[in-house]
């Protein structure tokens, strides 16, 4: 069986482009990789598995293992080779461990900015700047646009998406957190440091976060937990003055909050870190890619749900990641064609 390992042997002389090895500016906060992958779902982890195994220095930046479409799936029985049922987060852990076993670096951090036009690509999180020769974007399609009545109008006027940024503005005030993911739970806990009262509003009856974190939030004396509750409107003229909610089977009520922190999911591609300078999109708003998964930005690849498949399946996302990885490997090693590797 021919494995990618034979490609490594035939490319022993391969090095990073001249001048890049010492490109950390001497302050230690920049790190150079061959491949940076944004997103730790099946697409991103499969890409990382292949590039790491091909000997390319690979880093995966993942907001949260619980954040993506697979991470929030409870039961998977049809991922080939993995007899189920298995939880999405457990399947992801298997994938992550496999990529890590070949030397990929995994960091749980949110990417705040990525410049797709330059090479090396510059990727910025809160704590580090990473430069990578190639960028594989695998952030999925659970993004959203402001859609709650009042949300967009009051953004920056009490509506925020970042409690760690703006929590201090609400010292001693009542606030609401809307969401059901790990980020929502963490941010709500953070807000308890400042806010007099934190109303946590969940559409269902549970959140997708670790049991410890969830228990800490639910038991916090300044947190009121509103489950099976929908947000009808964020109220206020020039500032947030309240939030109108509808508990399941109950009647509408208004919580007199001064801040509303929103962490909801939608079904739009997550591309916010490009800060408006995004690669070409399809008419449907997904990322346009060629057959090697490369976007209109040379050296930037998009894989998985970002590309707007007709069916959203983990195995298809994983296959995308592999295609991108092989193309990246070919580009960085200067070959014209992808070598058959199996």
């Amino acid at each position, binding site marked *: 069986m021919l494995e990618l390992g034979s490609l490594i042997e035939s490319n022993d002389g391969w090095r990073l482009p001249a001048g890049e090895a010492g490109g950390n500016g001497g302050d230690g906060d920049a790190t150079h990789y061959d491949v940076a992958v944004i997103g730790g779902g099946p697409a991103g982890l499969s890409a990382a598995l292949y590039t790491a195994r091909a000997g390319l220095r690979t880093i995966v930046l993942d907001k949260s293992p619980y954040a993506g479409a697979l991470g929030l799936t409870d039961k998977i029985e049809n991922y080939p080779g993995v007899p189920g049922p298995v939880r999405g987060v457990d399947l992801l852990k298997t994938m992550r461990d496999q990529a890590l076993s070949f030397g990929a670096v995994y960091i749980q951090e*949110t990417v705040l900015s990525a410049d797709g036009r330059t090479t090396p690509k510059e990727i910025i999180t809160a704590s580090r700047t990473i430069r990578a020769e190639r960028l594989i974007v695998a952030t999925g399609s659970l993004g959203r646009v402001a859609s709650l009545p009042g949300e967009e109008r009051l953004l920056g006027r009490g509506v925020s998406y970042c409690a760690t*940024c703006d929590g201090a503005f609400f010292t001693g005030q009542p606030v609401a957190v809307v969401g059901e993911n790990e980020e929502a739970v963490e941010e709500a806990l953070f807000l308890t440091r400042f806010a007099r009262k934190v109303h946590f509003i969940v559409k269902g009856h549970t959140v997708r976060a670790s049991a410890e974190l969830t228990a800490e939030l639910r038991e916090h004396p300044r947190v009121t937990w509103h489950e099976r509750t929908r947000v009808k409107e964020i109220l206020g003229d020039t500032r947030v003055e309240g939030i109108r909610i509808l508990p399941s089977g109950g009647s509408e009520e208004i919580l007199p909050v001064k801040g509303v922190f929103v962490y909801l999911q939608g079904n739009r591609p997550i591309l916010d870190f490009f*800060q408006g300078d995004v690669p070409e999109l399809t008419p449907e708003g997904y990322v346009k890619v060629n057959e090697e998964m490369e976007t209109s930005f040379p050296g930037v690849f998009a894989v998985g749900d970002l590309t707007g498949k007709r069916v959203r399946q983990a195995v298809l996302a994983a296959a995308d990641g592999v295609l991108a990885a092989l193309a990246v490997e070919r580009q960085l090693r200067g070959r014209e064609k992808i070598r058959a590797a199996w």
Partner: protein
Amino acid sequence: MRPTVTIYTTPTCPHCQAAKRYLKERGVPFRDVDVSRDRRAAMEMVRKSGQMGVPVLDIGGRIVIGFDRARINGLLGFH
């Protein structure tokens, strides 16, 4: 001459840390104002930007809301 840069931040804000590091890496001197400790500065920031979210950058009197790389580059003459 480069414009004077002030950045309004809170200590725990990820976008603030990223924005400050972005400026530092490009050798841009700036004044860092922690609005969580300085109420007057917080009011000043709200007045300048019309909103209550950080980071806010004041680059020679032009206001940038959030860590907006393209706008920062534009106002500082970077490409």
